[in-house]
């Protein structure tokens, strides 16, 4: 136990005393949020002089989507024409609108003429936010007509009244950022494990009487706690400075963040134990970080077409789904499955890391 605690403290100090680490993991996100957050806030705020985006909507104005689009918070960004399918298609073809939105039994599709500018992004984000928060309400409205109806027992129409809290740009941005930062904290695990288990320090530790579980457990606890605290810095900062709404199910949000920290640690620890080269691992990890973040659609909605079905399982996307769901209401079944999946993937990666380590260090 002494050895475990000693290792934990050592690792904790080791990570926090590294100025680069502190810069990257604490200052960097705060700076990014300050810069980008302010940029976003300038574009999308009630005082902006951004002209409302003209869109055509082929849906019932009194339906869920229709009502959602006409809430005060949203409608001020939009210049909506409700019409039928043909009408919307025509307007899109004529490019009199920047997007045509079709709703067919809860399936929403968007036709975008031309390339998307800020307006298009805005519309996509609004529709995305509808998908996130509207799902519970939609399910309720469509029961019996949709596959989700089969999950009726699990689906929990949450008490998040539509309209009292519409996710704002920053709400999305903060979640995306936080998840990305947490993915990045995998570097802590990489640093600590490669230092403590590989290299000459690894030999020194192996010659000492510390047990393997105490050593590995201590290192893991140190990198996990450090990473989690780094995530909390962003969590608290965005809440305090931008008033980001983290919802009423904070424990679930925090649990998800924890699962994600474990995932990022396990990924990097596995890579470094398998490849034993910090440079290569950090290159691979960076590519993975940015890819996973990019395909997971944070604030800026990007349409990947058919690949969207696959990309929803990207680690970041799963975390987004759970957290957005926890904040604004979502498919509980899916959230639970994703949360278990994050823990499960981490466990598998840790086992693989352990096997690689044992084979290499034997």
């Amino acid at each position, binding site marked *: 136990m002494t050895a475990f605690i000693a290792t934990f403290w050592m690792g904790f100090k080791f990570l926090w005393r590294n100025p680069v680490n502190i810069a990257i993991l604490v200052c960097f996100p705060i700076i990014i949020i300050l810069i980008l957050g302010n940029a976003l806030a300038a574009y999308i705020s009630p005082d902006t002089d951004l002209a409302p985006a003209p869109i055509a909507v082929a849906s019932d104005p009194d339906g869920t989507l229709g009502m959602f689009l006409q809430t005060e918070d949203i409608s001020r960004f939009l210049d909506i024409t409700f019409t039928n399918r043909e009408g919307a298609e025509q307007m899109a073809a004529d490019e009199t609108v920047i997007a045509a939105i079709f709703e067919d039994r809860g399936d929403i599709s968007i036709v975008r003429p031309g390339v998307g500018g800020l307006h298009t992004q805005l519309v996509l984000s609004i529709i995305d936010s509808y998908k996130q928060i509207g799902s519970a309400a939609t399910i309720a409205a469509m029961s019996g007509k949709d596959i989700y109806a089969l999950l009726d027992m699990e689906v929990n129409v949450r008490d998040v009244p539509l309209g009292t809290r519409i996710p704002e740009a920053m709400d999305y941005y903060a979640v995306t950022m936080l998840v990305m930062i947490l993915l990045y904290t995998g570097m802590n695990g990489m640093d600590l494990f490669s230092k403590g288990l590989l290299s000459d320090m690894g030999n020194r530790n192996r*010659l000492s009487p510390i047990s393997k579980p105490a050593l590995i457990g201590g290192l893991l606890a140190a990198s996990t706690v450090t990473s989690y605290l780094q995530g909390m810095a962003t969590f608290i900062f965005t809440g305090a400075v931008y008033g980001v709404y983290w919802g009423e199910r904070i424990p679930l949000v925090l649990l998800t963040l924890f699962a994600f920290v474990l995932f990022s640690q396990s990924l990097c620890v596995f890579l470094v134990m398998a490849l034993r080269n910090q440079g290569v691992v950090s290159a691979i990890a960076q590519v993975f970080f940015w890819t996973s973040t990019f395909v997971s659609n944070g604030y800026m909605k990007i349409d990947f077409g058919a690949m969207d079905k696959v990309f929803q399982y990207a680690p970041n996307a799963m975390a987004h789904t759970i957290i957005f769901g926890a904040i604004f209401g979502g498919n509980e079944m899916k959230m639970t499955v994703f949360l278990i999946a994050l823990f499960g993937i981490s466990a598998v990666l840790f086992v693989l890391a352990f096997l690689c380590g044992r084979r290499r260090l034997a």
Partner: protein
Amino acid sequence: MIASMTNIVKRYRAHTALDHLDLAIREGETLGLLGPNGAGKTTAIRVLTGLTGVDAGEVRLFDSDTPVTASAVKRRIGLVPQDLALYETLSARDNLSYFGRLYGVTGAALKARVGEVLDVLGLSDVAGKSPKKYSGGMKRRLNIGCAIIHKPELLILDEPTVGIDPQSRNHILDFVEEMNRQGTTVLYTSHYMEEVERVCSRVLIMDTGRVIAEGSVEELTRTSLFEETVTLEVRDPAPALAEGIGKVQGVLRCEVEGRLLTVTSTAGSQNLARILENASPYTILGASAKRPTLEDAFLALTGKKLRDGSENE
């Protein structure tokens, strides 16, 4: 026998790093392990401490069958690795405390012991600084400190003085001598003859994975393989002088070059007085005797120069 390695064979793929190596460390001695780059010194230490397995042979520590991987055995050994193994962002004190705790030293005992080690290594003044800010010699000393915090009975130092100035090196050598005086058995690996000659009571010379010579420092340098030279500087030496000296017992040859006479004898001839006697009619401007060093011994035994061994390979 505090440690013994018998008939050890260790291969890295096709390369045989240890080739039927026999090595024994006696209780209380300071054993020097000398050899050029790639001789297999570090590999021998890795085998001895259980960091790597062997292809053949047997390792025994502390006269028992308890494997070296048992924590009871680990507690009795301290290894100073050839390459620095420190947590660079932690202070010296934190590094020492960490390793102390791993060995079960805690509380007041740990604090006292850390202070003691810092003191003996001359690091007390910089105890709060991280090794990132240390000079090479200070890092080396801390590297040693981390290995002795738990008072090992067997201390193994793998080239502890590489790349540091004479002062730091002296400090480390003094320290090794002091540890040995206090009863620690030491295995000392080095490229440097002077060091081994100074601190070791017994020496093994290794090359290409095997021990090629063994004995006390005197024994090794006294073997008949070796020669001693006396150089005399004499004003106007006559040819008769060289002739006369050549007849002195033990003298192998006497070469004259201007004022300089180089007299080569078999080692241990103890004929310096007789040589000087022969030269006494002349004005002797200078005289120096050179006894064989381990470097010479190594050269004679292996045909390689010790320090640039790897370049000859």
